[in-house]
């Protein structure tokens, strides 16, 4: 499936883009993360949540929708 992945905050700095299309042939969120960690090794040290179709999903969830987002917490004020 061709995923459309959005990156927020300092995650977008790691990936150096706010959004990208990503070819993914496996099924689970955890498998997607492993592929992203290969592409962006420093992502592994970051805290973030994965959302699919605007809802937080667990690592065990299956990817059924191409719209993915990686959201870190922000602390600034």
């Amino acid at each position, binding site marked *: 499936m061709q995923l459309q992945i959005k990156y927020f*905050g300092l995650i977008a700095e790691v990936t150096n883009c*706010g959004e990208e299309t990503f070819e993914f042939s496996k099924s689970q969120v955890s498998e997607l993360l492993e592929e992203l960690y290969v592409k962006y090794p420093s992502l592994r*040290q970051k805290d973030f*949540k994965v959302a699919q179709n605007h809802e*937080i999903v667990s690592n065990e969830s299956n990817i059924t929708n191409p719209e993915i987002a990686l959201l870190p917490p922000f602390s*600034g004020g």
Partner: protein
Amino acid sequence: MSRYNRHIILSDVGQEGQNKISNAKVLVVGAGGLGCPILQYLTAAGVGAIGVIDFDTVEESNLQRQILFGTSSLKTNKALAAKERLEDLNPTIEVHAYNEALTPQNALKLFNDYDIIVDGTDNFETRYLINDAAIITNKPIVYGAIYKFEGQVSVFNYKNGPSYRCLFPSPPKEGSVANCSEVGVLGVLPGIIGTLQANEVLKIILGFTGVLSGKLFCYNSKTSETYTLKIKKSDSEIDKVLSREEKFQTQEFNFNCSSKNASLKDLNKFENIQFIDVREFHEEPKVELNNCVQIPLHNLISRIGEISTTKTIVIFCQSGIRSKTAVEILEKHNILNSFSLIEGAAAIIEQLKTSL
């Protein structure tokens, strides 16, 4: 009263709505980039009682975005400086300024005096403290946070809705999120996010149905893009907080796994202190103390030999974030008698004028 005429002629507000605003009590935690526009609009709107809590002092580098302050406010406490400006803006309301840090010891009592809590802080520890204290006291939180050109807004703990921990159950790993002194911000961004927060406060007061509960609204000021995430309530996260209610005000309650925080007022408990300033050399204000060494955080390991093994080590930075990382680094190098000062350098200078 002509002051609120533009509210009253709105059919969704009217005199009845304005009366609700006048009877509302709102506590704003933090009078910084977010807090200033929040306070300004809530005061102008006529919120009857506004509390503002902040221990920090106004620095020149704040003026680019913290719009309640002018050059005449420099070096004064932010809560007190905000109160002075807000009372001029609207003398018909009550403004209560608290010149102190929000702590587990004062949070519950303070929250009980208000209807709505607004999170305008700049660090995770206080955000989790606000979340947990609001769950225990059953108050809604209007949350906002920024990072460079991006902001997040949500309403937590509103009418049995999700809390901040339902989205991010625990604080991020130390060092995985850059601290405020390392990160720049275009001054207008906290203005936008803070104004969205003020809007949510008024929607709650007026009983509007579209309150941003169960959703995280994300805004990117560079691309003008928005993204809304749905947040599901996690009863187990909320129950965990409630189960710790009894321990809340004691040392046993840990927000951030580190109990190695010290406040300026605690320092008289220690004899023989060595202060470590982990800020960069260019950072202001300079702290001049005989028993103080300046070692920027990134040099801490290479200069570890300069740290006393017999004295109590009190580490400070600008706002208590880097100092906490420094305590962890020292622990890994078996220096265990170190504490992170929750206040920053500016507060030390204030204290120096009186005692120490």
